[in-house]
């Protein structure tokens, strides 16, 4: 049992897998000697050498092309795209090539490939370096999508993503990097497609992801003081999606909320709400409510960014108001 920061858990998880599979390689900008701009790959080039931990030019299309070509010819690859906002400059590689090629070729190729990227706000980096784009990935058939909220999950889901023979987009949250937690000794391998009930409750279900998980948990504490018992689910994996856990929790509580950092329209919460409101309709005691970043680009100033991202206060107020009045967000 060692205490590990979320940041360090990234390199820890990758190292576990690079030791296990000598074929596994990594590429990205400034990931080798510099250890990554978020210091998430510190020590890897020292242990595994520059052929396995490879610096690249600022050529995101070439990075993912190299990753794709290597993966489809038998080399498992981890590619880093520094900020998730930059997925946009190589979106063709992700959405049109990597995601579709297995289906298009009727299964002739596989893509043991993980695209890691720093996602999310809270660092006052402004609209082009703060986005939560997990919904971009979720909407593309052929991609698996993971977003851990704890150091242990970083390690375990990293291992699961690397071992998965399909392409996984792995979102590391910028504002969770510094957080520390105990991580068990020995090999850690988690399972994709499994949500986790991180707090049990009986009145409402709150589904959250990444940075929103600790906020939902804190909100649940405050809601408990107000007499509302909230069950909090860390969704962890958007694709595959653990609908069973979401549906059974909602069947129990009768109320479903999401806490989302992505902007409002077509977020992952819209998908979850649609599933719940179709399949658990007769269990619902009131409307499903999404607590999201408003549908605006993210502002840079600290005071504005704090207003934009879902806060503990906003979660508490929205859930309370909704439970009390059956109203809207």
């Amino acid at each position: 049992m060692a205490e590990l920061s979320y940041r360090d858990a990234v390199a820890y998880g990758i190292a576990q897998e690079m030791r296990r599979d000598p074929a596994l390689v990594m590429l990205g900008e400034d990931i080798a000697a510099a250890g990554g701009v978020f210091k998430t790959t510190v020590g890897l080039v020292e242990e595994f050498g520059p052929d396995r931990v490879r610096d690249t030019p600022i050529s995101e299309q070439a990075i993912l092309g190299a990753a794709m070509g290597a993966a489809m010819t038998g080399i498992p690859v981890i590619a880093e795209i520094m900020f998730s906002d930059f997925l946009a400059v190589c979106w063709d590689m992700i959405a049109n090539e990597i995601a579709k090629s297995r289906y298009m070729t009727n299964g002739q190729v596989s893509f043991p490939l993980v695209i890691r990227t720093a996602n999310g706000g809270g660092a006052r980096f402004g609209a082009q370096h703060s986005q939560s784009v997990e919904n971009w990935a979720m909407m593309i058939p052929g991609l698996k999508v993971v977003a851990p909220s704890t150091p242990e999950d970083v390690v375990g889901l990293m291992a699961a993503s690397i071992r998965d023979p399909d392409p996984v987009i792995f979102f590391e949250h910028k504002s969770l990097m510094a957080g520390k937690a105990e991580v068990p000794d020995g090999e850690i391998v988690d399972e994709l497609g499994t949500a986790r009930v991180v707090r049990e409750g009986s009145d409402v279900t709150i589904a959250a992801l990444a940075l929103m998980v600790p906020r939902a948990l804190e909100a649940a504490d405050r809601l408990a003081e107000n007499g509302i018992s909230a069950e909090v689910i860390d969704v962890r994996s958007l694709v595959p999606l653990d609908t069973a856990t979401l549906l059974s929790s909602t069947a129990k509580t009768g109320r479903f909320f999401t806490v989302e950092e992505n902007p409002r329209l077509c977020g992952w919460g819209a998908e979850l709400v649609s599933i719940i409101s179709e399949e658990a309709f007769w269990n619902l005691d009131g409307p499903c409510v999404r607590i999201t970043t408003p549908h605006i680009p993210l502002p840079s100033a600290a005071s504005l960014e704090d207003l934009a991202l879902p806060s503990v206060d906003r979660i508490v107020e929205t859930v309370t108001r909704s439970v009390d009045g059956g109203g809207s967000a």
Partner: protein
Amino acid sequence: MPTDPAYDYALRPPRLPDPEDRSLDDAPIDQETRLALYRKLQELRQWSKRAHDLFLQNLVKGTTHLSLGMEAIATGFGMALKPGDYTFATYRGHAHSLARGMDPGKALAELLGRENGVLGGKGGSMHLTDVEKGMMGSYAIIGAHLCIANGAAWSAKMRGTDQVAVAFFGDGTTNIGAFHEALNMAVIWKLPVVFVCENNLYMEYTPIDAITAVPNPAADRAGAYGLDPIIIDGNDPDAVYLAAVDALERARRGDGPSLIEAVTYRTGGHSRADPAKYRPEAEVEAWKDRDPVPVYHQRLLRIGVPEAELGDITREVAATIDAATEFAKAGAHPGEETLMTEVWADGGSAWRN
């Protein structure tokens, strides 16, 4: 297969290949190889014409991009590539697929959207792939596959094999960003990859000169990556074969990538929808004289191959294509049971429990 490295196959200016040029008649290529080149050329030509006939019969439903007139490039490279090598092509990838040994029947069946197509009907005309044959895919969005070819080359290097990846693309593709990223990475990582620009003078309906800052869209960019400019007659299977052998050798030696501009012309339209009326008639006529099939036929006659032997090859190929057509037409239309398969490596498409 090794050729005389000093042999000069480069296209001399003017850029238009000269059908009267006899200089490659005595190229260091043995007759067996040349007959194989001729057979391949016939196969690609006859297959493409058959695909065209099948449109006209309304059996091909989507779009299709033929290589009619441009087959010498796939032919020359197809002959020079070794079994383990990797080919990456565009939507105009039929010739390159067949040149690597894709079954012509399964290829036609794919165009017809049949279950016995090489992709079970899932991919269609623009995505022919046959991984077992080293045909790593046909990519329909301009640029990406140059980057992907790098990845296959990188993989070969990491695995310590002598495989080479070859990416074929058009003149128009040299103006998209991915071209630039791919070339730079290939050079800095010294990857065993060959980039082959099939310069057919048109990006779809727009003449390439109208939209490109330099006259030779690929060769004039080679220097930006420290590479040699190489321009060849893309309608001459011998010139292509020699250039291919050189570039592949260079890659296998560990000397890194090459960029080859093969000048050619497509006889038909860009795709089935295109009557190709935007081209000056004189230009079309001039290129008719450079059609690789009769031009190569003449060369073989000049170097002493009996006409009858060439006739036999042509007829044998025709029989193959007929059989392939029957095979394709006999295929069933794929149904519900395959719709949801092969999104994931487990064979399925489940995104939830």
